[in-house]
Structure formats: structure tokens, C-alpha cells
């Protein structure tokens, strides 16, 4: 009996010491973006009516069809920073941390990207998210937790934003989940957007960065200037059925119109076969 107890005790001790072993990870530093993934979308930007590969619903499509690029000339729109879910598409990023010197616990991570210099805070101290009447911001309210070597972040309280820079909307009811993991000097940043208003499935994208200690985030003091005179209160947009540019992208790339109109089915590999069986676009979207 004593032998059995000894074996059980030894087993318990071993189990106690055989949990997962994690490397120490720090995300702090200056990171240069690697834009090999989705380069046209991230560089020059999407074209009008280019919705393929996104799990959008009819409401999102309807709203994007009404969007006019001239909206960016309206004063209140000129200096908008990219929201937290769109920011990783661009430029490098600086990540730094606040450490409690007494406990050595990380209180928060912060990120800062070049475009409009939005500073984002990811709270690591276990604080709850604020109530529904709190201010919503471009970067939202983020809390993080380590899952092994991976930092998982939940973000709420985002302002209404966009899935693409061609008017595809993302509502303020969206929730952003992110996973950050570091492999040597490479940082992988995965974003998952869930939006009950404009998406039928989560929208997932990954972005890669390389450690670049020489990278400097430049100051971006945006100046609001009225350069397009227009009647007071006018907001540029297209009335339903009147946007003449919606089929240009499909025609330019010899794609079926249905494919570029987006929707969850256009995200998956089997959709390639459906595209092959479809006729390319030859007329406008009405």
C-alpha cells in the first residue's frame, strides 16, 4: 500500500511540473510591415465595387454601392485615422509596454502606426470593458491576455469604420479579436472582425511584420482644408442604382460581376470552379 501511495505521489509531482513550457515573449519594438499579402488592397487600395473575398451581406453591398470617394474631401472625414481593425494593413508599427515597477507585471501594451498616428492601448491588467454608453473611439477599448506564447486581444467600443477603403462599412457594433505571435524577428498579427450588421461570417486576415529597430514612426499632423467648394451640408454619395463605376473592376479583370460583388461564398476555394463557369462582366450593376 505504501508503494502504491508513493507511486501516486510521484505521479502527482510529475504532473505538477509537466504543464506547457512557454518561451518568454515580448512584442515591444519597431516593426516594419511586409505587404506580400493582399498587396494591391494594402498599397494602391481597392477599386470601386471590388468586394470579392469578403463575407458581406446585402446591406453592406447596398451602402458601399452608394459610396463616393469624394466623401474624403468633406472636412470631418479628411483626417480620420484607420480604425484598429484596418490599421495593421499599413506602414510599420511601434509597440511598447507599461510595466509596473513593483510587480513587474505588464499593465498595458500600446501601438502606434504612421497613418494619422493613432495610439492604441491594450490593457493587460484584467480591467473590464466599459458600459455601452462610454465613448467609442477609432482604436476601441482593448483587453489582452496571454494564451501560451500568443497574445489574444478583444476590442469593443469601436467607432463605425470600414472593411475596405471603397466604402464597404463596418459598424460600431462589431467586435475585434486579434492574435499576436512572434517567431524570432517576425510578428504575425491576425485580426478577426465579427459584425452583426454588415457581415454574415467573421472576416479574418493576417499581417506580417519584421523587427526593424531603425524604424521611426513619423509625425502625421493632418490639416483639415476645404479644397472642394460645394453647397453647405452636401454629402457626396450615389443614389441607389446611379453609381456608374460598379462594374469597372470586373470588366477590367475579365471577371464575372457576381464574383466581385462579394459575399461569404467568394471567400472559399471551391468558388474558383464557379467563377470558371460564369461569364465575365459586360454590363453595369444597377
Amino acid at each position, binding site marked *: 500500500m505504501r508503494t502504491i501511495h508513493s507511486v501516486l505521489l510521484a505521479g502527482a509531482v510529475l504532473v505538477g511540473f509537466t504543464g506547457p513550457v512557454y518561451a518568454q515573449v515580448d512584442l515591444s519594438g519597431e516593426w516594419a510591415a511586409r505587404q506580400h499579402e493582399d498587396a494591391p488592397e494594402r498599397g494602391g487600395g481597392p477599386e470601386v465595387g471590388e468586394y470579392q473575398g469578403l463575407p458581406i451581406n*446585402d*446591406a*453592406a453591398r*447596398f*451602402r458601399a454601392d*452608394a459610396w463616393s470617394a469624394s*466623401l474624403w474631401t*468633406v472636412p*470631418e*472625414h*479628411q*483626417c*480620420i*485615422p484607420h480604425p484598429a481593425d484596418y490599421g495593421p494593413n499599413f506602414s510599420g508599427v511601434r509597440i511598447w509596454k507599461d510595466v509596473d515597477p513593483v510587480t513587474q507585471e505588464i499593465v498595458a501594451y500600446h501601438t502606434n502606426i504612421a497613418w*494619422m*498616428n*493613432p495610439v492604441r492601448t491594450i490593457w493587460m491588467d484584467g480591467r473590464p470593458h466599459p458600459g*455601452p*454608453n*462610454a*465613448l*467609442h*473611439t*477609432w482604436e476601441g477599448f482593448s483587453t489582452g491576455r496571454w494564451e501560451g506564447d500568443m497574445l489574444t486581444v478583444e476590442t469593443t467600443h469601436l*467607432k*463605425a469604420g470600414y472593411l475596405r477603403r471603397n466604402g464597404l*462599412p463596418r*459598424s*460600431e*457594433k462589431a467586435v475585434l479579436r486579434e492574435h499576436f505571435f512572434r517567431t524570432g524577428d517576425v510578428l504575425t498579427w491576425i485580426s478577426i472582425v465579427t459584425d*452583426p*450588421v*454588415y457581415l454574415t461570417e467573421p472576416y479574418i486576415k493576417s499581417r506580417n511584420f519584421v523587427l526593424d529597430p531603425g524604424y521611426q514612426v513619423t509625425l*502625421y*499632423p*493632418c490639416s483639415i482644408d476645404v479644397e472642394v467648394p460645394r453647397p*453647405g*451640408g*452636401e*454629402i457626396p*454619395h450615389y*443614389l*441607389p442604382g446611379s453609381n456608374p463605376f460598379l462594374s469597372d473592376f470586373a470588366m477590367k479583370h475579365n471577371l464575372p460581376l457576381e464574383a466581385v460583388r462579394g459575399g461569404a461564398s467568394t471567400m472559399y476555394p471551391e468558388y474558383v470552379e464557379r467563377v470558371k463557369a460564369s461569364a465575365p462582366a459586360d454590363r453595369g450593376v444597377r
Partner: protein
Amino acid sequence: MIAGPGGNTTVQVGRDGVLVVDPQTTAVSQPILAEIGKLSPAPIRYVINTTLDADHVGGNQAVAGSGQTLAGGNTRAATVYSSGGAPIYAHENVLKRLSGEGGVASGWPTDTYFVDQKDLFINGEPVQLIHAQAAHTDGDTMVVFRRTDVVSAGDVFTPDRYPVIDLQRGGSINGLIAGLNQLLRITVPEFNQQGGTLVVPGHGRLSDEADVADYRDMVTIVRDRIQDLVKRKMTLEQVKAARPTFDYDGIYGAQKGAEFIEQVYRSLAR
């Protein structure tokens, strides 16, 4: 900002006492007073109504009645302890409608203005009452706290729902859009469209300029769509069937979207 079932109350506290914008409904007067008491032990000196709906003025009597008007010297006893209570400010159209047919028996504004703007100074800062003409109603006031950089927008701005245009009480779609643009001229973002002036809406969450702009865009775009359908001689039912709020209904609610469409249609038809 105190958020309640009747909307939002703005409270300014300081050396002179307490200023309350929109004390919400009668039913929540005591909880509102309790919350104000947590912010300051000083007496309530002013109550301001941004509009005339019961969810903005219902608590006037209880909240103003619990306060004290500013007075001193040998008149203090008469003003503070006889007439009692804090003055209630509003645009004069609020008083006209509350005291007229279909109005209420008590809780009327005691001090009104009829010009574009009325200025007060309390708790070390200028407080401006700015009339938004023919917006939600014809008696809407936006209250600007210039030093703390806060605006109480009333029902000109309600980011959790479509606007309500009270056509029977002087509201109009074009006046509402003008009111939203008026609000945008007051607000100033701090840096690259982030932060800056805080806006307390009549209903919904605390906001800033970017939120007002997003809402203004929506209201303007829906107005333009309905205006186009009206020009094409469509009936109200045809306009509703065209679903001009379709892309926004997931945010503000489809049922309220139908009501908003009807209000805009009837406003444009006038």
C-alpha cells in the same frame, strides 16, 4: 452624463452649485437626484431643457424644486424659500407648447429665450444655449459648455436610433440636418479626428465630432434618397417599399426606419 431610461442628463458641478440639463422623466427624478448628490452636495442652481418631450422635462418639477435660485441679501429669503427652486431655462417654444393645449400642468420653463443664442455664466465657464430651429421640434436647444468643451445636443443628435422629427411640433428634416451641421461647427477634434469636444446626445452613448459626422452623413443620405423618390412622384408606400434606409436599419432598427422614412417624406412634402 447620467444615462437613464429617459435618455441622458448632463450635470455640471462647481463653486456656484449644480446645473442640470434634461432631468428626464418624472419616474426617475429621485434616482437622478441621488446620482447628482453623489457628484456634488451643492444646491441645483439651473435646470435647462433641450426640448419639450416628457423624457426631457418630466423631472423638471422635482429636480428644479429641490434646488435654489441664486440670490442674496434681504431678498434671499423671498426668492429661495418662498418661490423656491432653481430656474428652468428653455427656448420659448417649449413653454408655449407645454403651457398650451395638450401641454402639462406643471414643470414649465421659468426663463425662456427667443433669439438664436442665450449666454449664461456659471461655475467658472460660459454656458451657451443655442437654438436649433425646426429640427426635432421648433424648440430645440443645444447647450455648449465652453471651458469643459462639452455640448448637450438634445434630440438633434440621437446616435442609438433614427431621429424623430416631430412634425406636429415644428420639426423638419432640413432643420434637423441644419442642426447637426450647426453642432459640427461647434465641435473641434483634438488630433486627427480623435477626441476633442464631447457630445452628450439626447439618447445614446457619449460621442465626439466623428460620431456626429457619421450620423449627419446618414441623415443627409437618407434625406437625399427620399427626396429623389418624391421628385419621381412616388407615394409614401412606394417610397417605403424602395427601402431607402435599408443599409442603416441594422444599426438603428428597421421598424424605426419605416417611421423615419414617413417623417422625412411628410416633411419634404410640406
